């Protein structure tokens, strides 16, 4: 590790603070657009933590995939479904909040207790490979992790086709309810939504 320990501690504290405050903002803020941009900040800070752990390739992948793809996708989804709606009030919202918050705090205390009390068998020379980690990841991906690598590519293809099939607007030659032929224009038609107002 080439950075001095004080610098590391300062970087780690700042990054952790940004991660935790940003994550709290993501779940607590009223505006969903602010949440999405804070989520991008959280992803960037997580990439910074990876850099502190000497993993430059995974940090770059994190920035490319999470900030570049997932976050942009979420912002597009917000743009497509952004409608001001008045949410119906839930009657037992207070008890739900209390129960879920207590469950989360219990889980957090359990996890922190395990983190602090368990004796981890750490290997002695820390971060010994450092800069070589990208080479090592490449060796892993093309030797002992070759099958998961190929399966992951098939998974990505399936996810892409599945997303297209799920999200596209069905073009039908005739109307289902009336049987009349419908005009195939590319403009947005106002259609009666199915399955609304169940209760």
């Amino acid at each position, binding site marked *: *590790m*080439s950075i*001095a*320990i004080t610098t590391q501690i300062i970087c*780690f504290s700042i990054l*952790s603070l940004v991660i935790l405050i940003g*994550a*709290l903002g*993501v*779940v607590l803020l009223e505006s*969903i657009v602010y*949440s*999405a941009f804070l*989520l991008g900040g959280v*992803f960037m800070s997580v990439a910074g933590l990876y850099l502190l*752990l000497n*993993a430059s390739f*995974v940090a770059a992948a*994190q920035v490319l*995939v999470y900030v570049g*793809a*997932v976050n942009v996708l*979420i912002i597009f*989804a917000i743009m*497509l*479904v952004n*409608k001001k*709606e008045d*949410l119906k009030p839930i009657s037992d919202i207070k008890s*739900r*909040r209390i129960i879920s*918050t207590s469950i*989360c705090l219990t889980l*957090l205390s359990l*996890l*922190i207790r395990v*983190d602090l009390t368990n004796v*981890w*068998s750490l*290997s002695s*020379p*820390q*971060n*010994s*490979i450092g800069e070589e*980690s990208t080479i090592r*990841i490449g060796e*892993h*991906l093309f030797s002992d*992790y070759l099958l998961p690598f190929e399966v*992951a590519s098939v*998974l*990505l293809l*399936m*996810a892409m086709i*599945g*997303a*297209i099939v*799920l*999200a596209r607007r069905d073009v039908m030659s005739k109307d289902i309810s009336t049987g009349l032929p419908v005009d195939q224009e590319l403009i947005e038609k106002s259609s009666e939504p199915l399955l609304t107002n169940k209760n």
Partner: protein
Amino acid sequence: MISLQSIPLQAFLIVSSALFCIGIWGLLNSRNAVRVLMSIELMLNAVNINLMAFSSFVDNNLIQGQVFTIFVITVAAAEAAVGLAILLSLYRNRVTVDMESFNLLKW
């Protein structure tokens, strides 16, 4: 200049535990379906921090944790794409993103 000390493993684990619990809280309490997907991404990131910390501190010679992190990032990207597509078609059918109104399977 090589310093032998570094940040303890426990610090990374505590940050990732807190991030995971914030994600679970958001998953349970959000009413907007997009925010539920964001909470899932937060939880996946917490798991990734854990994997990276263990790979650096425990298994720093064969960094298998980093390879696992790459796979988790891949699966998370696929999950986000399919989840948002499901959300779009749900919005088209119900004209809302309120989690409380998706009660078609509720008995």
